């Protein structure tokens, strides 16, 4: 039964796979970070699809809180990865 929940859930699986594939294949660090963020977005879509109960009905608030926590954790990990990369490029550039 093709409801919105199933549609978004299946798309979430596709995005997770896309992100994982790119994270494993790319060698440029920045694109691997983008790939991991895309994979995270896929997992968040999975959670929000699980929370969705139908056009009029109130959704389940727990996955929303989990996704909010996930987004903040993802941005702090991205920030640390980019800072490490910048320091690494700075070291490589001047030696």
């Amino acid at each position, binding site marked *: 039964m093709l409801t919105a929940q199933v549609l978004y859930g299946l798309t979430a699986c596709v995005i997770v796979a896309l992100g994982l594939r790119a994270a*494993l294949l790319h060698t440029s660090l920045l694109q691997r970070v983008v790939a991991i*963020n895309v994979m995270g977005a896929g997992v968040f879509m999975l959670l929000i699809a699980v929370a969705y109960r139908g056009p009029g009905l109130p959704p389940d608030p727990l996955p929303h809180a989990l996704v909010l926590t996930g987004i903040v954790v993802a941005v702090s990990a991205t920030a640390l990865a980019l800072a490490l990369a910048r320091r690494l490029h700075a070291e490589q550039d001047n030696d």
Partner: protein
Amino acid sequence: MNTTSLLVFDGLLLFSIVGLAWASLATTDERRSVILFMAFGLVLAVAWGRLLAPDVALAEAAIGAGLSGALLLAAARKQPRLLSPGSSKGSRHPDGANVSLVSRWAVTLLSAALAGTLAWALLHAFSSTPHDMLPRAISGNLASSGVSNPVTAVLLNFRAYDTLLELAVLLTAVLGIFALGQGTPGYQPAGPIFDGLVRWLVPVLILTAGYLLWVGAHAPGGAFQAGATLAAAGVVLRLAGRSRIGLPDGFVLRIVMAAGVGVFLLVGLTLLLLGRPFLGYPPAWAGALILLIETAAMLSIAATLLLAFVGGQPQSADVNAAANRQREEMS
């Protein structure tokens, strides 16, 4: 809005989301990849709105697309990486020659298999009766949680321990960035038009952040979205050439960084001393305590995201001025 037109809208939205994700990951030019990722984040925020998750839509637009995009763009190298001469210019495969064809096919098959098994498990999960035990428990206890927005209630009261650890994650990230040394020098002072916009936009952003913080108790909003909006104001200021962004220095900066975790712990431990469970707010005081924690969390989140954008300890004022003057003669 009958279901068929809703499904058409969903189809279009999902097609653009997957398309943007694919485009962002398939290109080898870093800047293009980041800009497409930001577009992906914004369309994703629309999807969250469509799935009746306004809190998450706000956070996705502000943090997922906005600030992550700003961090990534600042880190993206100006020109596309010099592709090895062998591979054709702008080849669709990520990083051309050095990833052998065999391993690329193997990984693609692995990912396809992963998508298949995930879909198989998910369809199985959706077919079983939806478990409403938790949502009912949340709405049941909402009255005594001190706020009427269920998402804020879960974040700041029922699962407050998760949020405490998440703020600790933020603190770890900023301490890790600090340990790597000085931040990047600021940007050039902005031209008259951009300066005019900044002069008008930043106060509005700060006001919106305050509004989002306050409204989080009974409507979508809250500490994370407010912190991200405040950080956006800081990023705009920095792009306009004011490298200090009004960030405090030394000890006060440390207090702001540790404010989120510190106030959370303070509240938790004092409640423990008063005989209540750790982070077990008394219903009468819950609303006020949550607002207090959210204010501190907003400051910490904004400071952390800004320091991540600056890239380390903000350089003292005179160093920035010198860097700007030196760039003046150069250009």
